[in-house]
């Protein structure tokens, strides 16, 4: 049951799109900064398979420049 937090940075000019795309993904919570083009992304998935799927989806997002991990926690059942 992993929980991760990241700083997500958009590609040039794609801030709004990135926020929308991230918010549309399941298991994702998005907290945008109000004075910088950076977003805190928190993921909370029920199991390893879902986590893997989410990771894949995140990697495919065209608006995303980079995703830096700031916190990781994996509670084994």
């Amino acid at each position, binding site marked *: 049951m992993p*929980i991760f937090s990241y*700083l997500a940075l958009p590609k040039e000019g794609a801030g709004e799109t990135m926020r929308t795309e991230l918010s549309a993904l399941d298991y994702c919570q998005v*907290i945008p900064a109000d*004075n910088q083009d*950076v977003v*805190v992304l*928190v993921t*909370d998935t029920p199991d390893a398979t879902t986590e893997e799927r989410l990771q894949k989806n995140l990697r495919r997002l065209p608006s995303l420049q980079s995703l830096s991990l*700031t916190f990781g926690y994996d509670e084994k059942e």
Partner: protein
Amino acid sequence: MMKKNDKGDKQTMKLNRRQFIKQVAITSAFATAGSIFPGVSFADWSKLTNNSGVISWQKSPCRFCGTGCGLLIGVSDGKAVAVKGDPNCSVNKGLCCMKGYHSVQALYGEDRITKAKVRRDGVMVEVPIQEALDIIAQKLQETRDKHGKDSVAIYGSGQWTIPDGYVASKLFKGCLGTNNVEANARLCMSSAVTGFMTSFGIDEPMGCYEDIDHANVFITWGNNMAEMHPVLYSRILANRKRRSNVQIIDFATRHTRTSQAADKSIMFKPQSDLAVANAICYEIVKNGWVNSNFVNKHVSFHKGKTNIGYGTEDHFAFTDQEEGISFEDYKAFLEDYTPEKVEKISGVPATDIKYMAALYGDPSLKVTSFWCMGMNQHTRGTWINNLVYNIHLLVGKISTPGNSPFSLTGQPSACGTVREVGTLTHALPHGVVMNEHDRQMAAEIWDVPLSNIDPKPTYHTVEMFRALDRGDIKFIWIQVTNPMVTMPNLKRYREGALKEDRFVVVSDVYPTPTTDVADVILPAAMWIEQEGMYGNSERRTQHFSQIVDPPGEAMSDTWQIIEIAKRLGFEKQFPWSEKDYIEKIWEEYRRFHAGPKHEMAPYKVLNERSGVQWPFVNGKETRWRFNPQHDPACTNGKDFHFYGQKDDRAWIWARPYEPAAESPDNEYNFWLNTGRVIEHWHTGSMTRRVPVLHNAVPSSYVEIHPEDAAELGVVNGEKVKIISRRGEITMPAQINGRGVPVRGMVFVPFFDESYLINEVTLDAFCPISKQPDYKKCAVRLEKA
């Protein structure tokens, strides 16, 4: 046996635990964002309160540094689960550093001390706290009866709340009649106090953090603000970004994150800041940049004793002798400090000295100087404080927005509890024990006979632990601090504390090397598990309510002292009930500061606001002291009033350069400098229990200049032995890490109890302030 609803409870617990972890994940991300994008704000986060399970937010100052950021603590199911910066607090306007964001996790380390323990036959055994308090009271009484009133002592810190320090002083000085009251803040800011007292006759900064929004030039004197006061440094950087005419000069002995962000970084040889400050004054005088109008009206010139010693021997005593001098005498004194001569002492190019002087001297620029431990932990700490004031006074850049010589503090209530309450051997909540009027005031407010208050100070901190070693002190109660990590020349003091007939009581929240030497350990309530007040670097008193319950039998330090006072028969002086003792104590304490120079806000006002700056007169806070436009205590009808000194002027001091107590030589050829890192608070006893902070910097290391490391044949991470005349320690090398010392110097952070660097440091101190110099002693290095 499993109860019927255990499963449901378990699920709820699990849910709350996940919510808690999610809050931690969010705060970690905020902290990282804050360090990458200074000034970044996540105001929308408040909307989360509806779906995160957080049910209430309550204000509190941060537990950690003297910046005094206002926090909002998110509480869910009686547990503090989240932190955000308080947008209503003018200190940080919603920002926090990584320590602040993670601060609530420090409440929940697995090894919190929740029960009292007593040493029986060499083994610590748990006892009910009331029994432990009985033992302490009995032992204190016995020791006093057998060895006299000055055989017992209390040692606290700038992490004491204001009520903690107040009741400690009232019990020991007022009731027990001993001036054996000291605090760890002696080790971090007493030179700032003596600097203020000698230059202005009154303690604490004339300016405030708003100076940052007005100054054009920031000069940091041996002060790594980017790591030690990160929120303030972010505010400086934000100002530089917003305004075109702002620059930062880093004047230091080591390249740090502050240097990286500065516009110019100037390195000087340890101790030579004294010479450089005088050279800046020389240049100001020589180039006609003195603000004569200001100096003629508001300044007088003085000198004191020279060759004043270093205090390395027991019973060292020193009293300065002030003598008035003329401006011409002062000018003649400065002749020894031409930039060219000082270049030889300091290694600072004469052109850089002239450049700094020109910044101070340019009447169109507002200049703020910041300093903290670099200037205060100095065997001439009082002098270097005087010398930086000299610069500001010569050009009249003081007590107006943006023009500020600003001494920062390290601990959350170094100002509030130690300097304002006066928890040092010579001090009282108002004034000093040597002054009869001040003793009378204390005796009256405390309701004790005047004869109870001894007019003679006893031991400053280093001498207090020497007295414990010698056996002059037999009983010591240590609260909220960790001297068995922080005392310089530590080995002597640890062995002293462990001697057969010494009795050591330690109140703390986690096991530390200090609880290791204790005969009784009391479980203490931490921070928001109790009500209290702190006082930050800018004269701001900050109240916090009890927000969560303390664990087990943990009790506030204030109430522990009250319990002992009652057992010793002082019910009359400590009549308060647990319900409202903090309010009652505050209102009693406030009487000491009545009057426009130091008036404190009433309890009700403190309770409502995110901090209030004193003097608080007629409902108004004071931003800039000594300036009649802001300060109600100014009465001389002039544009400034330096009312602290007897001549109503600020004092410029002729203070020479004198070498450090111990400098590198052929045998011990490196300087050792010690200090802190952004992730860890003080000795790390709290922050090392916060996983994110601990993992960021899990252990200490020795920073070495890459060329020195190459000569030694050491690469990053390899072990190095650091040897001084007092001890040795082996630890991993860090080369080209976040800090890079100059050649010939090594730097070691002191937060890690598994590397006790203070076994190597020297217990030399400033003879005036008695503050030790943790920044300079001589060591040699060996590849381990």
